[in-house]
């Protein structure tokens, strides 16, 4: 309760300061629109439905791409961590591609898939896949060997060890890897949406870009707020339950 109050007070304070800076006209209103005008843009966009639609378009792209990336990346990461040959080939490739900002795929994606949803999906998958793969690989490698050793003397091996020891034991890493994958996917999708217009639907990135094109900074800041909100929400819904579980079961004070 007290913590919530403190946080709220802090943010209300921030907004008030922002408001007074704008009112005092220290900077031109073009450079920094006030909270009132941002609020009124958000209200208008919320009531005419364009905000909800753009959020939906963006979330759909993100979700599908992210899921595909995880579903491919998780098992591949396990494999590269366990097999030397795979690690020296696929692992090195993944390391390279992981350092490539996935927005760099945009030109090729547009060429290969046209200005379509598939191009966006491709970019999002490239953003997720490699980082999930690397994180899982890393997590499996960083396991205290005592766990697998103990399991092996109990007769566990092969797939059983993978499923019942390595996967749960690397959980803290896997979850943080999936979180990072999410962050990369989110970033690449925004960059891609800001960069290219799609025929199949306008996402939040497009609204942000349009805000810039029209010199409408209230729109830009409004959309930034929405993006922050969605990011926080996704964190709460997708990752917090897992982290709480780990906290309770493992005694990690996260």
């Amino acid at each position: 309760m007290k913590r919530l109050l403190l946080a709220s007070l802090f943010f209300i304070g921030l907004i008030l300061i922002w408001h007074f800076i704008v009112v005092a006209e220290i900077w031109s209103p073009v450079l920094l629109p006030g909270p009132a005008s941002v609020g009124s843009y958000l209200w208008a966009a919320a009531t005419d439905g364009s905000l909800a639609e753009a959020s939906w378009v963006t979330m759909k792209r993100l979700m599908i791409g992210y899921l595909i990336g995880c579903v491919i990346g998780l098992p591949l990461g396990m494999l590269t961590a366990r097999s030397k040959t795979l690690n020296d080939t696929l692992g090195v490739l993944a390391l390279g591609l992981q350092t490539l900002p996935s927005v760099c795929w945009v030109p090729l994606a547009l060429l290969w898939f046209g200005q379509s949803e598939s191009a966006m999906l491709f970019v999002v998958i490239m953003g997720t896949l490699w980082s999930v793969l690397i994180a899982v690989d890393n997590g499996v490698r960083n396991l205290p060997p005592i766990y697998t050793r103990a399991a092996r003397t109990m007769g566990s091996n092969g797939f059983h060890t993978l499923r019942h020891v390595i996967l749960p034991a690397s959980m803290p890493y896997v979850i943080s890897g999936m979180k990072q994958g999410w962050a990369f996917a989110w970033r690449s999708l925004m960059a891609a949406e800001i960069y290219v217009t799609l025929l199949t639907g306008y996402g939040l990135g497009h609204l942000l870009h349009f805000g810039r094109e029209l010199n409408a900074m209230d729109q830009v800041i409004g959309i930034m707020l929405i993006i922050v909100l969605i990011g926080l929400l996704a964190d709460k819904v997708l990752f917090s339950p897992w982290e709480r579980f780990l906290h309770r079961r493992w005694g990690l004070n996260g």
Partner: protein
Amino acid sequence: KPAATPGAKPVLRFGHFPNITHVQGLVAHALSRQGKGWYESRLGVEIQWYTYNAGPSATEAIFARSLDVTYVGPSPTLNAYAKSKGSEMRVLAGAANGGSSLVVRPAANINSPADFRGKKVATPQLGNTQDVQARAWLANQGFNITLTGGDVTVLPIQNADQLAMFTKGEIDAVWTAEPWVTRLELEANGKIFLDDKETNVTLLVSSAKFVKDQPDLAKKLVAAHKELTAWIKANPKEVRELLKYELKAETNSEPKDALLDKALGRVVLTDEISRSSLDTMVQSAQKAGFLKDIPDLTQLIPSL
């Protein structure tokens, strides 16, 4: 930000686009490159040239105080003027009219305005002159146009992509400016549906601060611009070489003579500010939903 070192000439930061509709900018920039600076000799300043690809970047630069004067289209100018409540932008002179057209794809079967229902029309950039014109024109035909959809989908797509998508049949029509109109015609079999020769397409614009702080220089600048416009009209051969030289320097590709001639033929050079054209543009922008209330235009055109 370049600060004038004592003894050195004052610096004027000047912008333009590498487009045919910015003939004055291209020619003056080329002359500067060749050491025969047009504005330099007439204003007694040093010119720093900046090239932009789109109106918003140029107006942004004026907002950010990193640019003094630029050639730019009327729509971004009016938009920036309105968004800054009349405090940042000033129009000094006209530069070019016309040069923009609505091109349709033959296979799309568009013969009358009513045929646009359900079609996809591309414009170079959201809120730029052609985009506003397209949205207003379509609205005038009775279509419901929204930012992200409506009866006709208006899509802001970069010029280079437009050409490819037009070829592949992914878009049905394009409202754009030269040289892209000509390229659509020559390379993708586009048909011109509507040709616009009256509307201001390029203006000479400066920051309000520039006019306020250096009114004399502004006056000299306008005079030099008028002189340049007249000189360009009088020397088409030399101008063509200068344009080729400059476009090659800026975009790394030299336009073909045929393309250049055809495109230049559609652009009408002028130094007049057409007040009525500006008013129409304001109404169009309102119709397109980009301007919420009518800006007070009294400060837009300063008397020098």
